[in-house]
């Protein structure tokens, strides 16, 4: 009874994650796909919390749900609801299916057979809050990556602005698509 509930929780989260991800992959409407991604991300966050990684889980929600997903929706809305019902949405659809079947067939036994140097669930210590440890790690062992990551974010910010605004310069009828 005690072990059942956590296991059920895991299966519930895994179901939500994989179901919504599959919906993302196969949905006709891209907006539905995007919103379905919300459940994937949220389920993953729950799974992280379940794994005792509270900070990663909440970061997942903040950044993926609050940031990236909104950006994706922006992307969808700015590029228009272009794909019509009649239009082909995918290429190589069956090749893709074959690919994931093949890869899955190759990977699953590999995963299961591999001698992972891990402890079994029974031996695991109680999950503690990770936040202060992560804070310490970020400020000590991972200080350089941390700073580089901040630099990377700055570069991404500037780069994105430059790329997205690049077209406004050729407003004088020179850009090929306006003349064509």
């Amino acid at each position, binding site marked *: 009874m005690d072990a059942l509930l956590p296991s059920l929780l895991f299966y519930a989260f895994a179901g939500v994650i994989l179901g919504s991800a599959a919906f993302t992959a196969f949905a006709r409407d891209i907006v539905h796909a995007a919103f379905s991604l919300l459940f994937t991300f949220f389920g993953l966050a729950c799974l992280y919390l379940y794994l005792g990684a509270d900070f990663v889980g909440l970061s997942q929600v903040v950044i993926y749900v609050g940031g990236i997903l909104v950006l994706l929706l922006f992307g969808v809305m700015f590029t228009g609801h272009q794909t019509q019902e009649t239009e082909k949405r995918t290429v*190589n659809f069956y090749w893709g299916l074959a690919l994931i079947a093949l890869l899955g067939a190759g*990977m699953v036994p590999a995963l299961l057979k591999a001698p992972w140097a891990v402890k079994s669930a029974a031996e695991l210590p109680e999950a503690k809050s990770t936040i202060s440890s992560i804070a310490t790690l970020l400020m000590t062992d991972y200080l350089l990556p941390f700073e580089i990551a901040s630099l990377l974010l700055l570069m991404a910010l500037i780069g994105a602005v430059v790329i997205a605004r690049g077209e406004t310069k050729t407003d004088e009828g020179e850009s090929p698509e306006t003349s064509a």
Partner: protein
Amino acid sequence: MHLLEILSWLILALPLAAFAVQMAVGARLPRYGDFISIGAISLSLVFCLLVFFRVIVLEYSPDYVFAVSYPWFSGGSIEFRWGFYIDNVTAFMLVVVGVVSTLVHIYSVGYMHGEENYHRFFAYLGLFSFSMFLLVLCDNLFTLYIAWELVGVSSYLLIGFYYTKHSAANACIKAFLTTRVGDVFMFLGILLLVLYTGQLAYHDVFNAVAHGEISGTVLTIAIVCLFGGAVGKSAQFPLHVWLPDAMEGPTPVSALIHAATMVAAGVYMVGRMFPMFSQSAEAMLVIAYIGLITAFFAATIAITQNDIKRVLAYSTISQLGYMVTALGVGAYTAGLYHLMTHAFFKALLFLCSGSVIHAAHTQDMREMGGLRKKMPITFATMLIGTLAIAGVPFFSGFGSKDAIMAGALAFGSEHGAHMTIFIGLFVAAGMTAFYMFRLIFMTFYGESRNQHSYDHAHESPASMTVPLLILAVLSIAGGFGLYGGLWFNHLVVPPALQEAAHAAAEHGGEHGGAHGEAWIHYGAMGLSIFVAALGIFLSWVVYGVKWISAEKTAAAIRPIYQLSFNKYYVDEFYQKIVIAFVLWIRKVLAAFDRIVIDGIVNLTAPLMRGGATFSGGFDHYVVDGVLNLGALIVQAAGSVSVMLQNGVIQSYILKAAIAAAVILVVHQYIQFWL
């Protein structure tokens, strides 16, 4: 850092900085930046005077030495250092170089006014000043050689300043190449010294010489080789030919380089190395005779020249000969003293001649005359310079020349066979007085021989006359009255050198007026006054009141006159014999080249051609065939794979992923199949 060290750095840095600034941005500055150069050199002069004041006045001692050296680099077993070596001689030389450089800079503002490349001229002057200061300040042979060459380069640049003028271009090349002959000898000398002693710094070398690490014939050869450098730079016979031609450069350059400083570098070098030179009596004798020959022959040539600057050039050579002779007979202080006084009055004379040329627009004395009234200041100052060089009492030249005469007389009295030296100098002194007053009479007295240029003649601007006045004052004061030689004698001889000089005196003569016996001193003095008076009188007779016709006299002794007028055909000798010999060797080598080397090359050509034909065929059929086959295969493969390359990145990912998946699956399941 010691004060002197800082001052030395500044003295060196300022002209170099002025050079750099002028080269870089001089053309764009107001007044072409001459104020920068003048400011820099003036500050350098101030620092030179500070050094002088500190060394000679505040901390005077006969053996004052300040030395500092810095590591530079090391090659093999020799550590190359460079540094400053300041003693009384250095302090004196610094003042001489600084004063003359500064005055020439100021003078050039007037003289070079409106010239093209005005800023470049100042840049070169700055480079020259830097090089000269470095030469004076440096403490080892290696740096000396570098400074020596830098001086040569800047002299080359300055002589060739009017490089569009053919004669100037030739003159600068001639000067550079001729001095180079001397420099090669000097380099050999340095190499010999380093080879035997392993040292570069003056002091270490002197110590090594004193300890006999190098002696006898080898030392003599090394010294003579080193002296070869002085022969080149100080225009001694037989390498004096470049100096008259160098007068193609602007007159301030002549004053700076070819009268006061650069040509004195050889004398300074010999003076600096005197403790070593004095170790070899044979070498000293060589030096003395070369100086004598130079002094005498140059004086005879100067009598017949008509170009005002050439007269001064030969006069310079002659006076340098005096200095060298003085060094050779062991009158070390007298030589250096004459170097100083000569620097002042010869610079004065050159600048005066520049002023005259500036006014008369010609260098030919026959075109001049009667300029006394037009240019009073120039006349007065030039007269002072002439009196000084002629050895008239109470002028600076008297004291120094007298000291040299005394030294030579003493030497002669010790070694009767070498009395020739004294007699030669004595006669040359008379000739000096004669040709210098010839110059004065032809230029400033009598009637004008070219009315047009006479009418346009005028006194030079203040920037030119002020340096003249200053130099005139120095030309008088530099003699310190009658007894300058005595004073100078005490000033610049450190005891260490005194010993060396005494050592020289043991086999040579007594070495200076002060230490000479009274009869020698007063005898020499009386004789030199006498010959000076005689020379002036003769000159007055011939060119002043014209009781004797110069032309008739010349015609009467025509062969001698021609010999003198044509400078003893030394240039022609070089042209005919030396250069012809070089050209002949060139022809021989060319023939060897053409017949033997080209023959071999020509022989190889057919061989190569045969080989090439064969290898060409091989290339064409075998190599190309293989390649073409490969290309065909690649093309076939490409036409298949181009179908994969459809430009859609997703299909690439798909193909790559499928490939990876296949490999994975094969890897996973192969164990079951095997």
